[in-house]
């Protein structure tokens, strides 16, 4: 598989190339938006990693142009960390947004995740007891949880909590509500138990548990599964 890496800082592109090649991907290196569009026209590319602040054509405009003709996964890699920048990037058609300085292993994990989703999403099994939120799929018949096609192992309590939230996507459950549903007892003076389980689930299903995509914390209210991921 070929990955296009576009950043005006040559050393960053080289480093990313090393990490991706270790995982068996081939890499096309370009240093501005115009070159990226050129390569996309002439060569088959499976995924693009693009910086935002670049000379000639910036990453946002390049993404907009790519989206007019292609649906390949695009990961934006930027030094801009504001929420507004992330929202802009995702709105113009990027699939993921990572901030610099990034953890190279996390970048590789996100690349894999996007590629799996891109290639396996269409073949997702539809059944009665299947719950989906983006790349997160729960098959309650088989008691199986997959993220972007890769199986995740949960403990029975973690599984039940996640199932409760997946069955009611978008609904916010408080700690005591979750406790009463899962343990079937009244929550008298709850403790950290539920919160700890939730964090363990996040560590298993999220690439970066500190910035969860699926299992969101609504601070001071409860937990929910994000709709529309």
């Amino acid at each position, binding site marked *: 598989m070929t990955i296009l890496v576009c950043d005006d*800082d040559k*050393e*960053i592109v080289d*480093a*990313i190339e*090393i*990490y991706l090649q270790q995982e068996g991907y081939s890499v096309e290196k370009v240093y501005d938006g115009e070159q990226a569009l050129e390569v996309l026209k002439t060569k088959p590319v499976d995924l693009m990693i693009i910086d935002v*602040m670049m000379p000639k054509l910036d990453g946002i405009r390049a993404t907009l142009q790519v989206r007019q003709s292609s649906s390949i996964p695009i990961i934006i890699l930027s*030094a*801009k*960390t504001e929420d507004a920048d992330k929202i802009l990037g995702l709105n113009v058609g990027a699939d993921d947004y990572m901030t*610099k*300085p*990034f953890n*190279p292993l996390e970048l590789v994990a996100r690349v894999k995740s996007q590629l799996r989703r891109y290639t396996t999403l269409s073949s997702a099994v539809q059944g009665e007891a299947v719950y989906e939120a983006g790349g997160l799929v729960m098959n309650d018949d088989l008691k199986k949880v997959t993220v972007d096609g890769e199986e995740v192992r949960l403990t029975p309590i973690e599984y039940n909590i996640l199932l409760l939230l997946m069955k009611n996507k978008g609904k916010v459950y*408080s*700690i005591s509500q979750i406790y009463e549903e899962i343990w079937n007892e009244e929550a*008298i*003076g*709850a*403790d*950290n138990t*539920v*919160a*700890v*389980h*939730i*964090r363990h689930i996040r560590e298993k299903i999220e690439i970066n548990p500190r910035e969860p995509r699926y299992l969101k*914390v*609504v*601070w*001071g*209210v*409860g937990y929910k599964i994000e709709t529309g991921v």
Partner: protein
Amino acid sequence: MKEYSNGRKGAAIVIHQMFLVLMVCSIYGTGYNIRMHAGGLGELSLLMVTGLVGSFVTLAWLTNICGRRSEEDPGIYLNFIDRLYTDLHLVLMIMFIYLVFYLCRNLRGLHFEFSGLLVAVGTIGYLTDAGFLIFYLSMVRRAKNNTLLQHSLVWVLFHFIRDRLSGSFREPVTRKARERLAIQRAIEEIAAGAFDTRLDAENFHGQERELAVAVNHIRDGMSDAVMNHIKNERMKADLITNVSHDIKTPLTSIVNYVDLLKRENLDNEKARGYIRILDEKSQRLKQLTEDLVEASKISSGNIKLDIQEIDFVELIYQTGGEFNERFEARGLTIVTRLPHDSVMVRADGRQLYRAVENLYTNAAKYALENTRVYVSLEEHDQTAVFTIKNISSRQLPAGMPDLTERFVRGEESRTTEGSGLGLSIAKNLTTLMGGEFEIKVDGDLFIAAITFHKI
């Protein structure tokens, strides 16, 4: 500037009265001549028309300028006559008219020469007009000042009785008092920080206008100072953000290549040690850049808050869930004392979490190993107080510096992790959401408290 001086007004009044006496006398003369079958009616008519036109023109001009001081000054200035209540003045005028009629009726009984009669008619005309002018011009001034009806005994009595019945605060009656009150309210608003209040000088008169203009100047001055301060803070935040973007690009390469070096399986023990130091320091630099941007954004208020009703108890449990393993790793036990029921406060849940998270991080980093960390939420009448207490692993320096200042840490050497911005961020976030943030140090005991109003 075209002045309407008292001299000019007086002259206009004299001219007006001359024309009027001329008109009255010529009317009387015409009647006399007709009765006597004497000639000269044409000349008399001419005098009559001249008197009529002249007196009306001067009256119109007087009506226009009365109460004003110059062409540029739109203010209305009242004199002592205008202090008389409108209805009292009206009664006086009616009495005056009655007196004039009484005089006229007696005049018929007198047998004067024609010239004597003419003088009597002229005098009565002059006095009547003088009385009329005093009344009329005063009414015009009141009408211009919009106090024609308000400044009457009936109105005042009516309001006095109504206010007595309803028991409400009496609105000031005189214009001066009203304007003073308006200025006072504007000053109170400015003192409270509302810089959008602006007094319209057009609505004020005399001394009050000068006051109103001065109040506007103060408002402008303060507003400029505050805006400048905000602008400077924003510029500072923008500068820090931009600089941090520039730092992040080379930092990305440093982090990545240090990571690549780590994977190179170097045999040299020393080199591995050096790389470990590079790794730690570059991670620290990364954390520092991120915290710096956050701290400057928060202290400049450059952050959007989503204020909702949230459950403080739930938030503390959630935070505890995020941290329990970090505490366990250092042998710390969290002792949590929270109310059984929800404690609702108005705050931005995500930002309140960041504030509380910073306090937990602080405890996780600086608490003495194998001790207990006490977390509690106490409910008072109006407030909910979140407190976290821990025993510091190092002796906190005597004459404790303000730990919530940026870059201040409870240790002299800056060898451990942490940017020194955590408590500053927590404090600024809390105050930004309307809460209170307090830190106390008692020997080795470190106490941090966040107070919010309960709903």
